[in-house]
């Protein structure tokens, strides 16, 4: 198992390097600099001398290959550089924003797993029933509804009409503030998980080994527990892993809407203001998190299904 984990972790290194290269190239070719972003609100451009100094101070006056060399050298030392905007190390800027994003993403995923997986299971066990039809219609709707619109609707009903929850902000970071953004973010993965679980269970239900188990006289509960759940879990876990990454990426919209101070809103602002070191750091962090979660999922799948580690 250890060699499997090491192998999976080693496989992430070229991916991280490729992403680092891609981000660098992308943000080297797009127009606009941090200095020019400071004039975009129409209050007047920075004067030419200050702009020139700013570009020099941030190393933007160097040729691209020099900048790339410096960037790689910094990365090798696990140094993400300095933020142009905050003039603080990127690592500390990201650290400030990482916890709220993790809170939001975990809460959204917990919401989607706790509801989506059982719903899909029940729907598959009663195919064609009302519960199956209703849950699948709900799942398709959940996948189709734009997050921004759903978030606004939730704000309107649960904050403005019912007055149960605050409409925005981080507050003390507690459940009162977390609930609305987490649910708005969790609806799409919930829908996907419900559909995936249903499809996986239905497929396994028709498998030979399930038929054999039933013909042996095994109780339905034991069939579900030992054969259906265990085999479906591999597919469900893989979907959860992939959805974790998607949720962190999609948190951008929800964070902006609910003024939630996470990585997503930081990333959007940093792209707009061309705070390139923060953009690079934030994307790398999201990619690494995605890889980590999926490596964990692979390990779990290997534990559940021993055949996987040999493939």
């Amino acid at each position: 198992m250890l060699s499997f984990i090491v192998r999976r972790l080693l496989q992430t290194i070229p991916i991280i390097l490729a992403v680092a290269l891609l981000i660098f190239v992308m943000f080297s070719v797009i127009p606009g600099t941090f200095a020019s972003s400071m004039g975009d609100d129409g209050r007047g451009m920075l004067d030419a001398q200050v702009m020139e100094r700013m570009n020099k101070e941030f190393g933007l006056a160097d040729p691209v290959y020099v900048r790339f060399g410096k960037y790689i050298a910094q990365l090798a030392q696990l140094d993400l550089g300095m933020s142009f905007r905050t003039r603080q190390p990127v690592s500390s800027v990201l650290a400030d924003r990482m916890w709220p994003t993790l809170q939001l993403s975990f809460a959204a995923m917990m919401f989607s797993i706790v509801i989506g997986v059982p719903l899909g299971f029940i729907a598959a066990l009663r195919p064609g029933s009302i519960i199956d039809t209703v849950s699948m219609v709900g799942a398709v709707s959940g996948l189709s509804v734009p997050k921004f619109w759903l978030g606004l609707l939730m704000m309107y009903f649960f904050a403005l009409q019912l007055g149960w929850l605050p409409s925005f902000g981080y507050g003390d970071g507690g459940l009162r503030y977390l609930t609305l953004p987490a649910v708005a973010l969790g609806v799409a993965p919930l829908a996907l998980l419900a559909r995936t679980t249903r499809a996986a269970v239905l497929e396994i239900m028709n498998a030979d080994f399930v038929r054999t188990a039933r013909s042996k006289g095994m109780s339905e509960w034991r069939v579900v527990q030992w054969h259906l759940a265990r085999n479906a879990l591999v597919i469900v876990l893989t979907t959860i892993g992939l959805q974790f990454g998607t949720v962190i990426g999609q948190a951008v919209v929800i964070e902006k809407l609910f003024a939630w101070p996470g990585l997503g809103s930081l990333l959007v602002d940093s792209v707009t203001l061309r705070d390139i070191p923060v953009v690079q750091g934030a994307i790398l962090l999201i990619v690494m998190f995605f890889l980590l979660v999926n490596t964990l999922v692979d390990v779990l799948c290997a534990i559940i299904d021993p055949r996987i580690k040999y493939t």
Partner: protein
Amino acid sequence: MLKTFAIASALALTMGGIAEAQTPRKGGTIRLTAPYGSSFANLDIHTSNRAQDEIYAKAIHRTLYNWDSAANKPVLELATGVTASPDGLVYTFKLRDDAIFHHGRKMTADDIIWTFNRLMDGTKAYPGARYVRIIKGAVDVEKGQAKTISGLKKIDDTTLEITLTSKVDPGFYFHAAMTSIYPADEAVKESFNSKPIGLGPYKFLEYVPGSRLVGERWEKFYKPGKPYADKVSISIMGEAAARDVAFRNKEIDTSILGPAQYVAYQGDPALSKGLLEVAEVYTRNMGMNQNFKPFADKRVRQAINHAIDSDLIIKRLVKGKAYRATGWLPLSSPAYDKNLKPYAYDPEKAKKLLAEAGYADGFEFEWTATSNESWGIPIVEAVIPMLEKVGIKVKIKPVEGTVLSEVVSKGEYQAYIWSNTSGPDPLEALKCFHSATPQSACNYTAFKNANLDKVLDEAAASEGEKRIELLKKANAIVQEEAPVWFFNYNKAVMAYQPWLKGLQPNATELAIQYPEELWVEESSPAAK
């Protein structure tokens, strides 16, 4: 004429309507919003020129001057008096002896000298350098040829002499938050960036990056009895729709409105009572690059001004959240000329002017624009058929804000649409059309006119009423020359809760409030 008078009267009424006769109540929390993005740049206001950051800075910090919204001019803040030499170049400030930094030390002339020297550090890039450069010897420090600014002289702890390089009103230069006075001893420490210390009415309490900044009342603030509230909480809320829900849910006390919300709030009997409207010093315009051949001809530029029905666009697309621009200087400018008439919508005249300029068959140009709803692609799309009527074809080049500012300052465009600052100092605003002003500074259209240069130079050398008259004359020349399509002046609209009092109609940027003037009534959900 009647219309202009009505607009000016409405503005005056709005401004007048804000003055309150009630006795301010002490206590509670003022809940402001920072609506221009999802974060503050950082807590060192010297590094940012953005309005978003200036919102919190006015709570924590103070500058040599404040902007007096009622009088619509800069007023002394950290000094109790100032005298100017006969040549208008040497200013002697009698500084406050009761201004105390949040760590308990009195402000002295040394702090101001240290701050201005810091802003001119040639190895750094502080945006405030543009203002300090007006002090004699500042450029030498910037270039590394001197260690301190020679034009700054400490007479004693509370007396400071500033020598300027030209005859300007220093108030227009030293009221911007990026020239906030820092405590020399504390500002050099690394902790200053996370726990700023200032002279403002509120002491820094908490900052959750991307969410909120909270300040608590500074008991030793130099204005007796102020600030009124115990705390000020500034929520960072870039999303207009979310602000709308939060405002209606009474979670915030103020919200800056866009055109669509403006209409909705006007139509609501309760919400319409809490709208503060101000003609901000921003002129929305289409800049025409003089290096693009057709735009080098004044008649073409005038034709474009005649070909566009600005009033219709303001009414239908901007939902009335703007004032029709007559010239460059906006309604709230001291040199605004109420007798100046806007270009009339007259497509026939436009065609005639184009024919005279040799473009009877029209021409095509590329129009660089962002997606901004009030001065971006939606406006360009409305203008396209109007220009087509007179034979001019337009190709839209969509860009984002950061790119717009870059291509415009480099002159890499044919036409752009933007909202540019046109105040508060009318001289500075009009100097953007002086031939000596580089395109990278603010002469974005690369405009050159010897007559205008002469009038502006005369205005710079004069003062008082004479200067105002000359600036009006300069504004009229700019209008006649039409380097831009004069679209509108921004009508900034702030929705405020009925319990919030003391708001200031700040024409430089409505979202920027001096929070020591604000107070909340007992009915505020955050009154305790």
